[in-house]
């Protein structure tokens, strides 16, 4: 089976404080990893490391055999590694509308994805509609959207690129029941998609139960399978 994510003796520290030491883990392409743990143990940091958004202090991270370079992420995209990342706080561009947030990366990589301007617009609108973002919100700035809608726009932005690596940081926190179930349905689809490697960090037992993936617990810098 093709290797998706590989953490090779990864250590990370903030100043003198080691968050992980010598973390080694592999995940096949299309595999799923659900990480649970207390607040502050480094779940988000682990997700950033896995996605190649943060450089490890020591050790290496590989996505489909490619080492991500945070200053040249487009190289990874050109090598066929498409990452979708849903941040805990949304991470939407504040000066772009909801639609602008979704179309930006599609436009930037239009030649790689083989999309025309009209296809970009259609794909972005379809993705937002699929995530039940109201058309009246398409042209609103993130500051004018509710937390739930922002989270859905963030998901739409990540999914519009048809990612083969999907990273979600506490995807169901601060969401109403309806939006939560929408996110769960979507994650179940991605869990079963063999083309998508799914990594989720959460503190929600409900999400863990819905996904049905045996979780790994992050504690004291170690990632341990929970039986």
């Amino acid at each position, binding site marked *: 089976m093709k290797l998706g994510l590989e953490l090779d003796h990864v250590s990370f520290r*903030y*100043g003198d404080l080691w968050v992980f030491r010598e973390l080694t883990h592999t995940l096949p392409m299309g595999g799923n990893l659900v990480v649970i743990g207390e607040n502050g143990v480094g779940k988000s940091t682990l997700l950033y490391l896995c996605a190649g958004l943060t450089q490890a202090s020591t050790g290496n991270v590989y996505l489909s055999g490619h080492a991500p370079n945070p200053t040249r992420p*487009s190289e990874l995209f*050109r090598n066929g590694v498409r990452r979708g*990342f849903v941040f805990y706080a949304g991470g939407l561009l504040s000066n772009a509308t909801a639609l602008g947030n979704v179309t*930006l990366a599609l*436009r*930037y990589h239009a030649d790689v994805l083989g999309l025309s301007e009209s296809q970009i617009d259609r794909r972005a609108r379809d993705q937002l509609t699929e995530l039940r973002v109201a058309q009246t919100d398409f042209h609103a700035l993130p500051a004018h959207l509710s937390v739930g809608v922002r989270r859905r726009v963030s998901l739409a932005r990540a999914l519009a690129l048809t990612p083969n690596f999907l990273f979600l940081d506490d995807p169901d926190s601060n969401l109403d029941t309806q939006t939560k179930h929408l996110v769960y349905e979507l994650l179940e689809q991605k869990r079963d998609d063999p083309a998508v490697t799914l990594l989720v960090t959460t503190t929600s037992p409900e999400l863990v139960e819905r996904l049905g993936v045996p979780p790994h617990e992050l504690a*004291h810098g170690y990632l341990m399978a929970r039986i």
Partner: protein
Amino acid sequence: MTSQDPLPARRSTLPYNPRSEYRRRAGFLGSIGRGAIAWVYGASALFGTLGLALTSFATPGRAAARTVRAVTLSQILFTGVQAVSLVSVIGLLIGATIVIQTSLMVPGADGDLLGKIVVAVVLRELSPLITAIIVAGRSGTAIATELGNMKVSGEILALTSLGIDTPRFIVWPRLVASVLSVVALMVYFSFVAVMASAVLGQAVLGPSPAELRSGIARALTLHDLVLFVAKGVGLGTIVGWIACHYGLLVKSSPTEVPKQASAAVVRMLLGAVMYDFALTVVFYWLVGPPLR
């Protein structure tokens, strides 16, 4: 566990180590060593920002180049076009000030002398420096603050996750816009200041605008064009580069944003004055004194 037992040691939940804020005391040599290491790290990061932005130009991707072009145009609009009114007012007043000063120091100065003074003071010195100061104060602070806020809100990280290169999408457009805006605004500033000198010069000193024009033409050399372009490109680069670098230095706290924006302005001004001084020294060393 008895009541005397200490609490079990727990991993800090802070995303940084608070202890690292308190540095162990170092001796005299230790302080020098620490300072030198910090300086080398800072300088390499500063030049790294410029290097990555310049080399990002060669990154493949036609669609990315189109997107970056659009961002560059919006930056030019903000940095260059929207600064025109401010530059007009300052250029006008500087041109008038030059004439008043000349009339007080050299009463009855002819067009030739006034032309030489306008070239030496306005075109060679004040036009580049004041334009750079305006762009640094107006756009440089805005760039540093904008990028700092983008770092705090995780927007830069989000761009990286989408496969968008920060040096190409963020730094390069601002650098190009800064260079083009400073050069264009320098030309405009010089034009306004010369016009103000011509109008006020005739009223206060006597020489007609035509006499002033021929005086300026006699004072100008081909070297002036080189100096003008070198100052414009260099000062524009300094402003755009330092503003982006300090904006991107912000880590995770909103309180860092004003600190880095302030640091950016100080360094932009210092860098601009030093660069301007160095080029002026080289210019007069090659060309000779301005008034002969």
